[in-house]
């Protein structure tokens, strides 16, 4: 039976994405003293906590309104009120995010309204309660992520006097990546508000005493003041305008927006550095120049190996764009580019990158791993780059996987993967190159044997 190639799918076989509230949790984990509740049956929050904990190796406290059959008939407001009371009492958060689930949305609970009623009932005029509609069927975790960041900004930002700092809005990157962005900003002497900042909260050092809410995260006051910034730099080229916090700050408060690619690879990092120099009027720190030089040195060393790679790149749209560009820069031309999201921006952005690839590239959106696997087989892919579920490609097709993005649930250290900036890019490329080399060392005898004794022609340079 031919599979439907339209937006309307029947089977999703081994998904390449998760649901909206999953993505919505992450930004709240990057806000100082924040807690988050999923309004729905408790399974949602339990399942998502489990998966996020496995990626970051951190405790992930997410509340639930634990809706049951009664709530589906009479509405869930009472449960949500109770959940808010209990969370406030035990965790003493300074901000609470409320995400909805399939259940809350299908029964038509208006969480925005419930949140307002709650604040009124409790006499809490100033308490930031950020409600985000994230039905599981409304999009993937990528959209959920951006929707939550958008609502946090829209909920907190207030007209503020100009303060000259810069807003940095980041997609779902690793805590190590966030730390790297902060390091670059500090090196360049930039005053900034980075949102959401999971660098400390989701990669927490062992430190006593243990606190219920991890220290760190973007300060609430800093978010409130984002409208007073000199500019916003957002790494969100694939984000639709309606979900883009940068666009919101621009249209509501006139903060100029520089919507940039994730600073991964030479070109994209150069772009960030030039914009920062432009905005701040400063000069390039010597240390950063050296890092750029080292990255170039790494790329010169590695290009001969990487050019033998035919890559499949998959995951969140923003990261897919960054990874595909970075690989292409070093001559590892992607053969398959895929995302589970229905993001239309990615395809448009990818076109010029794909046009430069010497061979045809298969682009898949709303992809599942069955379609990615078929594409990899057709394209003779010999290296996969993306999150852990790509291990299916290794198991079934023998294609080695470089783990990258979210979630990484079968390896440790997802939170420590550094892949951006000049230094991070070099580390990313090394991981890719070494995976190709390992695979080559592992297989070359067999490949030679097949080639010379049996006359098989290898595809995609596996030997």
């Amino acid at each position, binding site marked *: *039976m031919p*599979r439907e190639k339209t937006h*309307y799918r*029947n*089977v*999703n*076989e*081994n*998904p390449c*994405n*998760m*649901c*909206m509230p999953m993505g919505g949790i992450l930004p709240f984990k990057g806000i100082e003293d924040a807690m988050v509740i999923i309004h*729905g*049956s*408790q*399974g*949602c929050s*339990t*399942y998502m*906590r*489990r*998966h996020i*904990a*496995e990626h970051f*190796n*951190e*405790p*992930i*406290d997410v*509340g*639930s*309104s*634990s809706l*049951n*059959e*009664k*709530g*589906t008939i009479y509405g869930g407001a009472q449960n*949500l009120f*109770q959940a808010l*009371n*209990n969370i406030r*009492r*035990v965790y003493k958060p300074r901000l609470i995010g409320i995400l909805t689930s*399939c*259940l809350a949305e*299908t*029964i038509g609970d208006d969480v925005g309204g419930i949140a307002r009623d709650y604040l009124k009932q409790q006499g809490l005029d100033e308490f930031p309660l950020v409600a985000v509609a994230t039905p*599981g*069927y409304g999009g*993937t975790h990528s959209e959920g992520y951006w929707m939550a960041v958008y609502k946090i900004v829209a909920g907190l930002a207030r007209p503020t006097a100009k303060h000259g700092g810069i807003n940095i809005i980041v997609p779902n990157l690793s805590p190590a990546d966030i730390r790297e962005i902060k390091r670059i900003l500090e090196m360049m002497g930039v005053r900034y508000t980075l949102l959401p900042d999971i660098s400390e909260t989701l990669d*927490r050092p*062992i*430190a*006593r005493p*243990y606190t*219920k809410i991890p220290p760190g995260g973007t300060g609430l006051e800093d978010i409130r003041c984002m409208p007073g910034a000199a500019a916003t730099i957002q790494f969100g080229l694939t984000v639709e305008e309606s979900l883009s916090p940068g666009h919101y700050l621009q249209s509501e408060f006139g903060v100029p927006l520089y919507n940039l690619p994730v600073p991964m690879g030479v070109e994209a990092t150069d772009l960030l550095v030039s914009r920062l120099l432009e905005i701040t009027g400063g000069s390039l720190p010597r240390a950063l120049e050296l890092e750029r030089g080292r990255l170039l040195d790494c790329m010169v060393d590695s290009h001969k190996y990487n050019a033998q790679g035919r890559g499949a790149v998959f995951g969140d749209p923003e990261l897919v764009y960054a990874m595909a560009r970075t690989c292409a820069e070093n001559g590892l031309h992607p053969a398959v580019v895929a995302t589970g999201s229905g993001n239309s921006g990615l395809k448009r952005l990818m076109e010029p990158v794909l046009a430069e690839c010497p061979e045809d590239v298969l682009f898949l959106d709303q992809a599942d791993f069955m379609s990615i696997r078929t594409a990899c087989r057709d394209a003779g892919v010999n290296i996969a780059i993306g999150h852990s579920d790509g291990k*299916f490609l290794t*198991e079934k097709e023998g294609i080695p996987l470089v783990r990258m993005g979210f979630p990484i649930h079968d390896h440790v250290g997802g939170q420590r993967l550094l892949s951006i900036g000049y230094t991070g890019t070099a580390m990313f490329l090394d991981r890719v190159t070494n995976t190709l080399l390992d695979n080559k060392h592992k297989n070359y005898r067999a490949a030679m044997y097949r080639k010379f004794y049996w006359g098989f022609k290898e595809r995609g340079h596996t030997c």
Partner: protein
Amino acid sequence: MAISEKMLDEILNKYPAKVKRNRKKHILVKDLGQDQQEIEANTRTIPGVITNRGCAFAGCKGVVLGPLKDMVHIVHGPIGCAYYSWLTRRNKAKTDDPKKNFLAYCVSTDMQESDIVFGGEKKLARMIDEVVEVFKPNAITISATCPVGLIGDDIQGVARAARDKHGLNITAYNCEGYKGVSQSAGHHIANNNLMEHIIGQGDLEEPPGRYTINILGEYNIGGDSWEVERVLSEIGYEIQVVMTGNGSYEKLKNAHVAQLNLVQCHRSINYIADMLETRYGTPWLKVNFIGIRGISESLRNMARYFGDEALIQRTEEVIERELAEIEPQLEPYRKICAGKTAFCFVGGSRGHHYQGLYEELGITTVLAGYEFAHRDDYEGREVLPHVKTDADSKNIPDLHVTPDERRYRLKIPVERMDELKKEIPLSNYNGMIEEMMEGSIVVDDLNHYETEEFIRILKPDIFSSGIKDKYIPQKMGIPTKQLHNYDYSGPYAGFRGAVNFARDVAMGFATPTWNFIEPPWKSKPLLEGTIEPCSTNKCAEEVGA
């Protein structure tokens, strides 16, 4: 260290008054002075406490159905729940025909907004056609997630139609997440449907072996079931089906031929055990394959049930041989573990079972509990007549089965059955509390806040639970052992499993890592040396150089 009423109050005082009253009923301190200690369980979770409980879907698709390897388990709903229940329990399986093992596949209708508005039945029906075409499974299950029940998709109807169309056993499970109070509701839903539509559908009439058994409530996490099966086969048992670890539709449909059903996880599968007894006259025996005493006793009880001298003797031989193999291996680990204390909080049976194994290593369990168990799992089945059914449990109706006219057979005479019941846990489970020590704490539905507080007070040496809560104690500097998925280790069941467990736990205590948490500059001076009078100019010269 024992906990006092005052300390308990201190923990609970942080809650609003109503929550405090509620939670207090879920916590008890074992008191031998009391005849029967009552605990509240299987009631609604309090919203906003960070519970470890999941939902009905997790219990049905995730736990009971998921491990059945030759079936494709379709998740009808938006993508999240299918993703989150994809290979997350480490239930292993192997098949003779590699094309009949579908565990690595996550198959979902991936409902979009339009499906929620216009209904997803047609999509589901088309999808079943595709699944039959692509996978050629032996059977198919369809599990519903929250919105399906709310929008009124008739998945039972779709399954019926597909059954007729494809001539395949296709069953549907209305296990929407909001049903019941935890995953326990989902176990019940799965039990009912498996009993109604699959068990007994096979045409086997006679047991394939002399001592044919089923193992119920064993999910083959980390290969547990394989280790247990190794020993059982050596004694001479024929295992018809394991429910559901490494289980298959092909075996399950003939589950009725067994002469005895073993129940490992009472909570998730006691419904089927009871129904098998009513319909086919097959009694069930509560077993515990975790720990040396647990498995030895279980094996002896099985042999007594069959009452065959040769079997009894063979059982003793195997136990003796296994013990001779493992005892020397356990010794070094016991030295490391002796005198330590543990928390043991798991889902519905392991919170109890692992206490025995801990004890054998010299570790005392000071706090234990279940996420989603019922009162009978704590207090024993004798409380069943006194458990009040509330609205939530009524929502999951019991399936009433009657004796199968053709296949019902008394496996042993009634008098002997009555006699045996006095000696072995035949069709009975005495629960966790009975085996716990005076002063130890039992907590139902332990949440993150209480976890932290109990750790502060009791300072256990090891915390054994799951991935969601293990990072809290780890951050506090306390070793943990995941008892849901064994931190990618295992098997832990059976004789050899006990050694694996001992090794892993001892490794947790012995890793040098813990020694480095306190930095040297906090406990000792950074520079060590003595100050000598500087008689010559040497010091100055050195500094100057």
